[in-house]
């Protein structure tokens, strides 16, 4: 009986001691921080709606729109954005570089016109022609004003002329403004005069004569291509 009593006391003491172990608890701060870490931040279906991300999101949208607009053709919704970015780019261009930019843009407008004509997008044709003509007039001014136009730039003009001629053949109508054609013709004449003064090989002389003939016959593109060929050979 005594032993049983002692045994009972012992069990009670053990249970009391065990209940004391209930006091074991983790640090409150740790538990709080860990919960936040585990559960993470509140999920958001549109996380970009948070003010902190709004700026970044807006920038990304703008970059996306600007990049996408670069493929736009006249008459497209994003075409004004493309024109705007081009205008912004020209602001930071020096006076010396401006003729180059004008000729670049004219070539770009001719390529856009060619795409519209190729796809037969009637709705976009009129704005595409208008855009090209506006740039071609500026290009004509550059060709008239600038006495020294680099061979690289002349190549761009030649490429533009080729593109426009293809478009005109496809459409069966003139799209290039006469001022632009005239400016190119004058430039070709001027190049021919310069080449006549310089020493040429027999082969080059032959090409030059052919170019002169083309020019007389009104084949400006052919004449231009030929003089460009001589100019390229001069470099080599």
């Amino acid at each position: 009986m005594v032993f049983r009593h002692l045994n009972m006391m012992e069990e009670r003491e053990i249970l009391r001691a065990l209940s004391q172990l209930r006091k074991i608890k983790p640090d409150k701060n740790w538990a709080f921080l860990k919960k936040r870490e585990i559960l993470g931040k509140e999920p958001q279906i549109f996380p970009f709606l948070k003010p902190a991300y709004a700026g970044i999101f807006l920038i990304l949208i703008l970059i996306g729109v600007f990049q996408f607009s670069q493929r736009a053709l006249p008459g497209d919704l994003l075409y004004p954005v493309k024109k705007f970015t081009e205008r912004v780019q020209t602001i930071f261009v020096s006076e010396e570089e401006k003729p180059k930019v004008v000729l670049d843009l004219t070539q770009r407008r001719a390529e856009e016109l060619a795409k519209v004509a190729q796809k037969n997008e009637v709705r976009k044709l009129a704005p595409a022609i208008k855009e090209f003509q506006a740039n071609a007039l500026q290009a004509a001014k550059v060709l008239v004003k600038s006495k020294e136009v680099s061979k690289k730039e002349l190549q761009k003009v030649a490429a533009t002329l080729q593109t426009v001629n293809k478009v005109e053949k496809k459409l069966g109508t003139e799209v290039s403004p006469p001022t632009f054609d005239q400016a190119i013709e004058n430039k070709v004449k001027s190049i021919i005069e310069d080449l006549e003064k310089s020493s040429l090989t027999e082969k080059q002389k032959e090409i030059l004569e052919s170019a002169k003939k083309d020019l007389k016959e009104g084949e400006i593109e052919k004449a231009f291509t030929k003089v460009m060929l001589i100019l390229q050979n001069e470099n080599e």
Partner: protein
Amino acid sequence: MDKRKQFSKIYDKFVNSIFRFIFIKVNSIEVAKDLTSETFLRVWEKFQNSKIGNPKAFLYRTARNLVTDFYREKAKINKTYLESLPHLPDPRSNLEEKIILNEKVRLVKNALSNLKEDYQEAIILRYIDGLSFKEISEILEKSPSATRVLVHRALLALKKECNKIDGFSSS
């Protein structure tokens, strides 16, 4: 109520008992923190994707498995770890938990550490966490009658272990 809020409540309700359950088994605050955190993380992942009928039992079962994995890994690294550590109380435990364990409580805790794993679990769940036999049986995945037998044997084993320690029954 969304799942995050539901789980937040579950966390608040059981974080102490899960930490305690693990701590008594591993005898290290840092390990107990890591395993508690891992337990809740795993249950949270499961909770998000499927329905958990009894989160309490699921938490304890996850904690048990993680403790088992922990010892298995430790055994691989150092086979003597299990033999040398359980008798050593964590030097920081008193400071961090602010528990003034009197000598008797300390002795019972050490005696508990010497019991085999399922006896330890039975004692912790029944006499420290105060769970019913039904709840314990769900956690240990045993029948309620087998659980009663286990708890009874575990207590006898604890008494025997305590009697081995000098001075316990002299108070």
